């Protein structure tokens, strides 16, 4: 079986954990996030005819005081950067994380999830910024932890990219 280590990253409160909760298998409680700083989940996806196990390392959110433990990123085949669409500063955090990860583990595929897509009226990230980042090679997907919109597809897409 093909397994891939995928990291789930993003600022505090962007809804990383709740985003995947409904779509993954897990045996660990959320308490691991605050104690060890990481929680492992698993997502089985089918790519072509083959099954792939995405081992998701849900890494505790980052803010000014706590930086992501770099050692948790080691060996990742790809990662998901989660941004809260209603809080532009979370995109800044994502940019900062991305630059550090790039230095640490090199260029592996990643997808940026613009979460809370259901809150259209509170949307605060200007389209221009996204376009600029897309031009730099970023891939954006809109998702909603509340409705589940876009999550399954994102996993599928990431798996397909990793399988290539």
């Amino acid at each position, binding site marked *: 079986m093909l397994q891939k280590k995928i990291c789930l990253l993003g600022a505090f409160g962007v809804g990383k954990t709740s985003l995947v909760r409904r779509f993954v298998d897990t045996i660990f409680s959320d308490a*691991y996030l605050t104690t060890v700083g990481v929680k492992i989940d698993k997502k089985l996806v089918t790519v072509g005819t083959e099954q792939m196990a995405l081992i998701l390392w849900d890494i505790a959110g980052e803010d000014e005081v706590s930086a992501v*433990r770099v050692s948790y990123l080691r060996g990742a085949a790809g990662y998901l950067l989660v941004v809260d669409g209603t809080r532009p500063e979370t995109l800044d955090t994502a940019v900062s994380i991305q630059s550090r990860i790039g230095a640490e583990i090199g260029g592996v595929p990643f997808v940026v999830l613009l979460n809370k897509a259901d809150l259209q009226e509170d949307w605060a990230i200007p389209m221009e910024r996204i376009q600029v980042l897309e031009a730099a090679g970023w891939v954006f997907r809109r998702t909603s932890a509340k409705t589940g919109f876009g999550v399954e597809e994102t996993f599928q897409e990431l798996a397909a990219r990793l399988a290539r």
Partner: protein
Amino acid sequence: MTARLPLAATRAPGSASEEDQGRRLAGLLLELARCINPEVAATLPSRLEDDPRLEALRGVLLEREQVALARLQRKFDDPRELADAVGAVLPAAFALAAAQDERLGQVIAPTVERAAQASIQKNPGTMVDILYPVMGPAIRKAIAETLEGTLQSINQAVKHSLSWRGLKWRIEAWRSGSSFADVVLRHTAVFRVEHLFLIHRKTGLLLAHVAREDATTRDPQLVSAMLSAIQDFVRDSFDESAGGGTSGRSIDSLRLGDLLLWCEEGPSAFLAAVIHGNPPAMVRTRLGETLATVHDQWRTALEAFDGDTAPFDEAGPLLRPCLLSQGAEAHRKVSPLLWAVPLALLVALGYWLAQRIAEGRRVDSYVAALQDQPGIVVTGAERRDGKWLVSGLRDPLAAQPEELLAQAHLDPARIMGRWEPYQALHPAIVLKRLQATLDPPATVSLTQDASGIRASGSAPQQWVDKARAFMLTLPAGAPKVDLSALKDVQDPDYIRLRDAIQAQLIHFDFSVPRPAADQESKLDAVAADMRELVKVARALGFPVKVTIVGHADATGKDTSNLALSVGRAEVVRSMLRARGVDPAVLAVRGAGPLEPLRPGASEDELSMNRRVSFGVSTGD
């Protein structure tokens, strides 16, 4: 360059003759050949002097190259400058050569080895200094592990050194030549390796997982990733020397109650074992060896691992033998035959106890049966010298105690009786005593009732008399014996003979003491009856007495008549005696004329009164 220029120069004027051109070209080619091949230069003379223009041309055209060549020449000639130049490019050259193939490594390896050898020989201290930071932690770790193992051994040894098992193990250690602590550990280490996770170090992905059939686990892929994360977490948090890389120390073991997690680290993968119980250090050695084998076999696959676990499918069978376990050996090794011995002893003991208890019970019931017997009083029953001694008082007429043994299912050989004789006044015994002493005829039945003993039926008078006499000898307080219901009966033969004898009268002539002559036949008959009577009485066991009474008539004096009557009786007695009658039963009495048969005074009446009569009675 040098070849083209002269040609170009010749082409430039464009007006020289063909022959001159050909010559020049030949000369040029020859010069070129001299330049290229030193052999040609040796055999052919230079033609430059033939054409000084050539030299001039060269001086003009190649001035810069000549300067550069001279500089290079200097560099080659001066060792110092050459060393400088080579030193500057050497690292890059090594890098390029190593990237192409492995020849460089092979070529320089012997030299490096020799150099290292020489260096160590020259100053060993340097090498120690170099290696110390690397070896130090490794050595410390090895020592710590050894010490830990030894401590565990010592703990076990101390714990078990004084017990019976300890003694057995000491003998085993002595026989097998291994240390006592090892033997103890071998017997006491109860453990089970339940899971083995082979985990890729860099990604934390699960390469292989084996578990016992009965072991349960959550998703091994998740577990292995979490284990890896925790390793990283601990390393990051507490080990400042790690520097975030895959090097550095890591968690060796985690303990949660009875559950133990042992991690064995390798360069590319680590092996995590979930163990129940208390494994010996041997298990860790085994894990280390297995991990080394994994690294050996899958070196390239481990380095190139990108999430595809297919190459590691073969690792499972390699890991499986590491699922070691050991139960409590002492319990396993006992052969069923060994159990049979104490079991047999136990059964024998149980049987013996049961027998003893059952015998005690039987003796109790035997004693109870004895107590119920009239005429027996049990005063004690005790075990003495493996036998039972029952003692007490017993009337000789009471039942035989031995007869009751069979009823109580007791072996007569195991029971001894000690009985003091006494006379019991129990009605049953008194009854027996009466029967033994009085020997009652078949017509008499003696029964025991509430008030005492009662005789019924019929018996001869003399037996009744005897019974009455016996009653008087019984001690006071004895049960009453009632004879009132007995009927007096006599033997019919006795009655017949008595009546026959008493009916006979022997007649006499006047004043003669001898019976009349015609009385002989009468005397014969009465004598025969008397003989039979004596026989009958003897047979029935009672005494009989025949009184011969002589009578006289009333004539003459009374005194002479009395003498005459006694004389007549005496005569008859002697005559009866002569006819075989036992004289002991015969008694005589003279009645004189006082008991006349007929009161008259006629001759017939007087004759009737001159007679002897017979009276038969029983008793003395």
